[in-house]
C-alpha cells in the first residue's frame, strides 16, 4: 500500500515536471516547442514499433499501433470512428487515405487538466509524432494527425496517411 502511494506521488511529480517543462518551453521558444514534442513522439513511435510487421492496410497498421501502445502500458488508446454520413471508415482524399480517430483515455489530457494547462499545446503534438513514427515503420509512409476537437472527455483527430 505504501509502495503504491509512493508510486502515485512519484507519478504526480513526474506529471508536474512534464507539464512545467512543456509550459516553460512554449513560453521560451514559442511554436518551436511543438516541433520538439513532435520529434520526441516520432522517436518514441519508431522505437516502440520496431519489429512490427509491415503492411499496406491502414486498418492493420492502426491495430498494430494500438497493440504497441497496449503492450507498453501506454494509456493512449484510440479507436477509428465513422459518422452516420460517412460511407466508409477509411476515405480516399487527394493527399492520401484519411481516418477519423477518437482518443478517450489520454495521459497527456489528464496531465494538462490536473495542472491547468491548455489543450492542443506542444504535448499534444507528441501523439502526432508518435503516429508519424509508428506509421513510418509499419507502412513506410508519411502521415499527419490533426486535432479536430480537443474535448474534456475525448479528442477527435484526423489521421492522414499520405500517398508515396
Amino acid at each position: 500500500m505504501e509502495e503504491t502511494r509512493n508510486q502515485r506521488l512519484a507519478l504526480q511529480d513526474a506529471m508536474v515536471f512534464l507539464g512545467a517543462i512543456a509550459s516553460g518551453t512554449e513560453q521560451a521558444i514559442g511554436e518551436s516547442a511543438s516541433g520538439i514534442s513532435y520529434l520526441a513522439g516520432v522517436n518514441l513511435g519508431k522505437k516502440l514499433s520496431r519489429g512490427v510487421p509491415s503492411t499496406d492496410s491502414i486498418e492493420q497498421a492502426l491495430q498494430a499501433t494500438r497493440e504497441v501502445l497496449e503492450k507498453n502500458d501506454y494509456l493512449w488508446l484510440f479507436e477509428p470512428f465513422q459518422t452516420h454520413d460517412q460511407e466508409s471508415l477509411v476515405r480516399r482524399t487527394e493527399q492520401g487515405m484519411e481516418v477519423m480517430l477518437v482518443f478517450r483515455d489520454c495521459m497527456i489530457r489528464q496531465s494538462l487538466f490536473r495542472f491547468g494547462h491548455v489543450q492542443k499545446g506542444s504535448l499534444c503534438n507528441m501523439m502526432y509524432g508518435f503516429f508519424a513514427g509508428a506509421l513510418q515503420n509499419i507502412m513506410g509512409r508519411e502521415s499527419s494527425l490533426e486535432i479536430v476537437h480537443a474535448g474534456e472527455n475525448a479528442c477527435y483527430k484526423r489521421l492522414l496517411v499520405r500517398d508515396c
Partner: protein
Amino acid sequence: MPVEITVHEQSCRGCELCVDICPTKVFAMDQERRLCTVEHAEDCIACLSCAYICPSGAITQRDFHPVKNFYRDEEFCQKMGKFL
C-alpha cells in the same frame, strides 16, 4: 451502443453553443421552438464538450466511457513504476 443524450427542454435557451462546439454535428437547432435537439446521437464521441459549455447545464449524457484519472488508478500507477 450510442451515447444516451438528454436535453432538458425547459433549461435550453437556444444559444446554439452545443451546435457549434460539437465536432460530429450531433445537435441541430429547432428554429421554431428555439431549442437544440439531438439529431444524431449515434455520432456522439462523448467528448462532453456540449455538457461543459452549456450555460444552463441542460445537456446530460449516459452510457459513455468516462476517462481514467490515471494518477488515481493504483493499477496504472504500478505499471508506470518502470518509467519512474
